[in-house]
């Protein structure tokens, strides 16, 4: 995509001259009969905040543990800075990991926890206190240096774990569900803190998460995984707006999927027949499609408008009846039943207060969207 020359955008993956920091080359990992990682090839670049996203059991943690050295690939190679990682044991790797359980050493104070890795590095002894203090400042833990891990709160423990894993200034920091144990509010604050620290230290972060919102918030690129395979690797906005499959569209955010048959195509415009007696959906598709093939039309609820009166001049207009309303405060989601019993969700920002909204249960309504609002998916 063309970017204005005067505003540099961080996108090393689009620069063919950039050398990747991590390269997975046809990596597979099998545990007995079970294939955890299925032939993955992937490049991760310096200073990236890379998220591995997927449901539990999709292989994301295995992928990360292979980077840390706790698992070895059954097939394929992993390179860090061009060097094959296979023969290097975990204690010799220039990667550090922040564990899901934090794995703080309960018998050591916060200070000693952070100094633990430094004492085992080639850093001169007299430089260690300064580095520990620096990490304590970075994570705002100065006051807790003398406490033991069980004497501080969960949020503070999370920051100790982060400080400890960053202290050795690793080339690559691995974060395994780093915010999973925090409550929602604290998690959101910590996400921004993580991004801030990542920017300040310039370290490459790889984060494993099952929380799509978290991945979208923090990551420069997101890899969506399923059953050991990479389904899509892209920036958060592209993952959301241009998913390459029904799986990705469905996994990330809320989506309406309409199954239909591709009909007439003219350039990138195309019509999809989705229900008997209903006007075809006008959509846009990047690639050519064979007429009559089955396609899935995916559209996000916030891109569907809802109205009591039939709107004029919209590319797509569908009649329906309000089945359910979910009021979430800032937005409301209307579940509308359309032809063939299909439910389509439309999301409306609640710009007015409750008493001024006029659509209610069992109302006949019109749904409308433009011909570029959704994406056409083949699988």
């Amino acid at each position: 995509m063309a970017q204005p020359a005067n505003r540099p955008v961080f996108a090393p993956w689009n620069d063919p001259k950039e050398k990747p920091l991590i390269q997975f080359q046809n990596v597979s990992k099998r545990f007995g009969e079970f294939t955890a990682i299925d032939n993955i090839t992937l490049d991760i670049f310096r200073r990236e905040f890379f998220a591995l996203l997927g449901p539990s059991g999709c292989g994301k943690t295995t992928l990360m543990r292979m980077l840390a050295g706790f698992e070895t690939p059954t097939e394929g190679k992993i390179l860090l800075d061009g060097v094959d990682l296979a023969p290097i044991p975990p204690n010799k790797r220039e990667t550090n990991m922040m564990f899901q359980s934090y794995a703080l050493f309960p018998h050591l104070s916060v200070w000693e926890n952070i100094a633990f890795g430094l004492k085992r590095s080639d850093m001169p002894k007299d430089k260690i206190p300064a580095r520990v203090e620096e990490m304590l400042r970075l994570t705002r833990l100065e006051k807790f240096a003398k406490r033991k891990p069980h004497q501080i709160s969960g949020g503070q423990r999370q920051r100790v774990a982060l400080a400890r894993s960053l202290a050795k200034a690793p080339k690559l920091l691995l974060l395994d569900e780093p915010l999973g144990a925090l409550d929602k509010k604290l998690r959101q604050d910590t996400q921004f803190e993580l991004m801030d620290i990542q920017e300040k230290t310039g370290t490459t972060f790889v984060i494993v998460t099952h929380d799509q919102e978290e991945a979208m918030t923090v990551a420069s690129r997101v890899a969506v995984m399923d059953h050991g395979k990479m389904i899509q690797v892209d920036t958060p906005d592209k993952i959301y707006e241009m998913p390459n499959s029904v799986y990705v569209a469905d996994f990330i955010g809320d989506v309406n999927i309409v199954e239909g048959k591709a009909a007439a195509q003219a350039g990138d415009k195309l019509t999809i027949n989705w229900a008997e007696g209903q006007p075809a959906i006008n959509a846009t598709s990047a690639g050519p499609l064979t007429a009559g093939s089955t396609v899935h039309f995916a559209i996000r609820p916030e891109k569907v408008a809802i109205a009591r009166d039939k709107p004029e001049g919209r590319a797509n207009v569908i009649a329906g009846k309000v089945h359910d309303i979910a009021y979430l405060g800032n937005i409301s989601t209307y579940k509308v039943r359309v032809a063939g019993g299909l439910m389509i969700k439309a999301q409306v920002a609640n710009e007015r207060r409750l008493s001024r909204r006029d659509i209610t249960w069992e109302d006949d309504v019109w749904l409308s969207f433009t011909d570029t609002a959704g994406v056409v998916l083949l699988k």
Partner: protein
Amino acid sequence: MNRRFSWFNATSLTLGFAFLYLPIVILVIYSFNASKLVTVWGGFSTKWYGELFGDQAFLDAAWVTLKVALVSSTAATVLGTMAAYVLMRAGRFAGRTLFSGMIYAPLVMPEVILGLAMLLLFIAIGLDRGVLTIILAHTTFTMCFVSVVVSSRLVTFDKSLEEAALDLGCTPFDAFRSVTLPIIAPAVISGWLLAFTLSLDDLVISQFVAGPSSTTLPMKVFSSVRLGVNPQINALSTILISIVTIGVITASLVSKRQIAQQRADEQAAVRT
């Protein structure tokens, strides 16, 4: 719940405890008996304790017993901890179940058989019977107790702590020494105390493997009782009972405190 302590409960409790502790209580009481006759109460006195400490043979036996207990329980702790660690950490390897079964076998093996087996081994390799053979034999049979105690702690040990240590640059041995060992230390200590107590009062195995110069206290007691019960033995037994009781209570307190600490830490972690 307002449940009264019924007379039935009270009776069964009294009977049960009487059954368990009456002999011991009588022994303790008679150790303070002034009369030389074991069955006649002649007033309170501590003279048998005094005579006991004047008897060189008893003191020698006590010294042998203490040496054996200290060395064998320490060796058993090292070996038992290693065995527990390997069985818990090495993952699946061929014959793992067999190995863990074999480690625990001496727990249920009759002592007579173990003692006899030891004796045959020492004769076969031509090792002269003495303090060393008692130490070796005691190490063998107490090791499995240590291993049971330590492995029950390792079951709940968060493996990611060790991984974190490796990740931060520890060699596997350094990770064990600086992370695993300090955390499981209470279990190791209570294993040691258990081994110490077991070694202290072992008679059967010692009988088999002891030499002429290496009589342990239980052996000494046993042989003098055969010549007739003597009030000194009562005094000695009272001292032994106190030591063993203190050992067992300490071991259980240590492990109880450790469990409480662990639970508190876990709760603190979950709370957030």
